[in-house]
């Protein structure tokens, strides 16, 4: 078993991880800074408070409905007043999401939602900002912005709906479409190799990286909730079905009948076991992951990797982001969760330090700085 996969000594997965506030707990400091209201003031919010008076206009059967519903369900749990939550989106079917959340919302332009979110957080660090995007929006036209929002650790939660197709433009290949996939723009098969979104997020130094599935409702709620509580750049890939242009793209491992054997539900501090009988696991054979069955060839649970989402070293996280069906079960849940100072915190610190050393600047003084002379 890999040394890196072991939990640090004394690390108890039952207590709050770095980067998250235990559910329902709010620090006095946050209340005093106006970041969140005390729970008793917000406890009354329910899912209905986040449902606006607008009918969603996605195709019947679209996976987006479930993602919307789970998001509306978890929103009250954060104890954040509704007016302090902002959803920002780009273009694509996912782009409509903010219109269907009864919070502040900004439907931006294609691929650029992270830029709007970065500026908003610069001006208003106290807001809880979500970015809703898709595989084309985030990884193709907006690829650059995703990289930089992640590496700066901007305190935003990016939820990327991955249906592996361009839906709103009616069925062209996306950056996550399969090699050889036939689409309207690739009638005899795509010649482009697909991107692994979570590998990109890890490479860009996202401090929270997770995956879930539109139809795996409990897991999706849990992942959104964890992302919401993370302080820093969170990237969540939601495998989402486009039943019109790429129906069943994830079916092979997400269908109810097979998902226990084909999804790997990650839990911090727990061995990476899967299967109906939880008798299969992932272990490292030298540097390579492999699927093993407990009891075969003398394999025991002790041979199986233990998930450590808080490991600063991302090696195993990269592995989890890369393994995929059919060679491996598809990992879902939180892959990485580390705490680093966020972009807005660092900007604030520099400003505070400048004021501490120079005193609060005064504009009139600034204008008169440098070489001046007086004409009588």
């Amino acid at each position: 078993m890999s040394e890196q996969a072991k939990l640090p000594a004394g690390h108890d997965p039952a207590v709050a991880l770095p980067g998250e506030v235990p559910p329902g707990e709010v620090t006095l400091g946050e209340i005093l800074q106006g970041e969140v209201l005390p729970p008793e003031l917000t406890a009354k919010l329910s899912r209905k408070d986040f449902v606006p008076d607008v009918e969603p206009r996605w195709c019947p059967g679209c996976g987006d409905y479930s993602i919307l519903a789970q998001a509306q369900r978890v929103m009250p749990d954060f104890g954040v007043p509704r007016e302090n939550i902002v959803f920002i989106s780009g273009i694509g079917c996912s782009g409509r999401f903010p219109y269907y959340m009864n919070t502040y919302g900004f439907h931006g332009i294609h691929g650029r939602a992270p830029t709007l979110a970065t500026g908003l957080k610069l001006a208003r660090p106290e807001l809880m900002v979500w970015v809703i995007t898709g595989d084309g929006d985030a990884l193709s036209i907006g690829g650059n912005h995703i990289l930089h929002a992640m590496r700066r650790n901007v305190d935003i939660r990016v939820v990327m709906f991955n249906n592996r197709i361009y839906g709103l433009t009616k069925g062209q290949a996306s950056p996550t479409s399969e090699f050889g996939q036939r689409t309207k723009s690739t009638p005899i098969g795509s010649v482009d190799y697909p991107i692994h979104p979570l590998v990109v997020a890890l490479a860009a130094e996202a401090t929270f990286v997770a995956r879930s599935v539109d139809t795996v409702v409990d897991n999706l709620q849990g992942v959104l909730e964890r992302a919401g509580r993370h302080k820093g750049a969170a990237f969540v890939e939601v495998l989402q079905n486009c039943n019109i242009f790429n129906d069943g793209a994830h079916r092979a491992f997400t269908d109810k009948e097979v998902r226990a054997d084909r999804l790997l539900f990650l839990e911090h501090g727990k061995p990476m076991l899967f299967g109906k009988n939880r008798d299969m696991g992932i272990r490292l054979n030298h540097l390579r992951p492999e699927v093993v069955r407990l009891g075969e060839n003398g394999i025991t649970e002790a041979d199986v990797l233990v998930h450590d989402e808080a490991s600063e070293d991302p090696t195993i996280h990269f592995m989890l982001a890369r393994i995929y069906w059919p060679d491996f079960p598809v990992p879902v849940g939180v892959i990485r969760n580390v705490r680093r100072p966020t972009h807005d915190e660092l900007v604030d610190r520099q400003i505070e330090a400048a004021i501490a050393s120079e005193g609060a600047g005064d504009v009139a003084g600034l204008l008169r700085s440098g070489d001046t002379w007086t004409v009588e």
Partner: protein
Amino acid sequence: MHAPGRPALPLCGGDPPTTGRAGGGRPATPAGVSTEDPRGLVTTTMRRDLPTRTLDRVTIRFAGDSGDGMQLTGTQFSRTAAAFGNDISTLPDYPAEIRAPAGSLAGVSGFQISFASGNIHTPGDSPDVLVAMNPAALRANLHDLPPGGAIIVNSDAFVPANLAKAGYATSPLDDGSLAGYAVFPVPISTLNARALEGLDMTAKQVDLVKNFFALGLMFWLYERSMEPTLRWIEEKFGKRPVVAEANQRALRAGYAFGETTEIFHTRYIVPSADLAPGTYRNVTGNEAASLGFVVAAARAERQLVYCSYPITPASEILHQLSEYKSLGVRTFQAEDEIAAIGAALGASYGGALGVTGTSGPGMALKSEMLGLAVMVELPLVVVDVQRAGPSTGLPTKTEQGDLFQAVFGRNSDSPLPVVAAASPADCFDVALEAWRIALRHMTPVVYLSDAFLANGAEPWRIPDVEALPDLRHPNRTEKAGFYPYLRDEETLARPWVVPGTPGLEHRIGGLEKHDVLGTVSYDPDNHHRMMTLRAEKIARIAADIPPLEVFGPDEGDLLLVGWGSTFGAIRSAVEEMRAAGRSVAHAHLRHLHPFPANTGEVLRRFRRVLVPEVNLGQLSVLLRAEYLVDTTGFNLVRGKPFQISEVAAAAERVLEDVRGGRR
């Protein structure tokens, strides 16, 4: 006001032009310099009593290799002249390459300063004095020097290798080709090295300081105190005593050389200008714009968030604003131009003053986000510090080529206001004006500056912050009767509701919205109505800006209409022509979209309208389209600002046409 015609040439009084190599006179030795005087006033035992001539205006161009420190030399001279009380105007001219091959024509860097005892509007058409640190600098700048102009050269640099790099077969100092000029060869490298003897520096380090020798010499020639520069050296290099000592010694040695050598027979004085009372400082356009944004935020009682991607010639605004952390200014170096404007718009959405700065190529990248800003009707200011040419063009050179891009450069009809600065100091006022319009009318505003303004400097009378426009604009917090697109009856501005406001949660975005309700709407009539409302909202700004003023006669033969940085050249040309009895007037457009309400009426009062622009006629097109008034363009697109004489000559040609009865 600057007197018409060329100012008297300095340096020529009694000095026969010399083309000899000798350098003349006895080189000053460091021993002849008193370095004790803390005020920087040099007194030597060899002091000569020279006649002093008084001039209205002098223009000097410092030119050398891009590593020779010519920008610094010019800046120090400018500060000194301004602090003395002259009106000044400067024009840096540097290559795009950071270090082109040493001694090559491509690597020549120049800095022109004009200083005067009266108001001036430009850095001067052509230099009276050229200080050339090597053959390439001489060759690259000689054509701008009028006959009889003075040339001070570093004769040490005129060695075969450098001459070859500059394309000289023979030394121009020896071959008589400079016979029409007053040439003063000075062995600057040698004299500088001698002055620095004994310091713990390599020969290369010593040579890097020679620009201050040249500066010292110019200070002597124009009777300027070394004090401000000595103080600057102390502040800049105080922690590196050897470097500070070297620079101070070089400066003093240059000054002492002027004092002791016999090649200069006259010193010159340009008396201080009659400037309005107040406290002054020098500002470049980029500095003034930066200060303007800080003040706009203070007057709006909001946070300033400046988001930008590095681009010549706008980067200094980012550098400058990132220094102002103790004022709470937030700056963001984005991953690209689109992210920069996106973050600025996001900041504005949050209730801050979101500003992004760029140049033409970056503007092109920002256009989609500008369209979104038009659609969501949030305040935002985009500074376009224009540079020359399409694509990458001439990145360090100036042009007025982005007017069309600013006014039209978005998909569909996406109207927004456009303002432009006229001079480096005006960049401050235009920053405030851009924000006044953006806040009052809830709209993105494009603010046009250019490389000439950005890098040029002039004295600026520091305003009283409290007397500047009040830019406060309330956030809407009242629930009753709130609709995202319910407009102000007068301005048609929509309410500004920032996230965090309880009970007013709503959604905005790039999709067409229902008038008033702000929900997504595909209704054809609603779309037409919103298109019209957006256009009308911007058109109404014409009622909120000052009328177009005419300098000169109210009506007559010829009106020159300009915008942006050509102000100085056009105004100076019109002043000169009026002094010569011509019927010409000047109108300067600070607001390019919409135009001031009386613009058409002003144009029609003149028989001819001449529109000088450093582009191929963009304002002409706009004026003709808007007012059906014919215009004549004067368009010269060389990456350089207009010269006064060029504008005056173009105006004379039109006047001749008028006299000849031609239209």
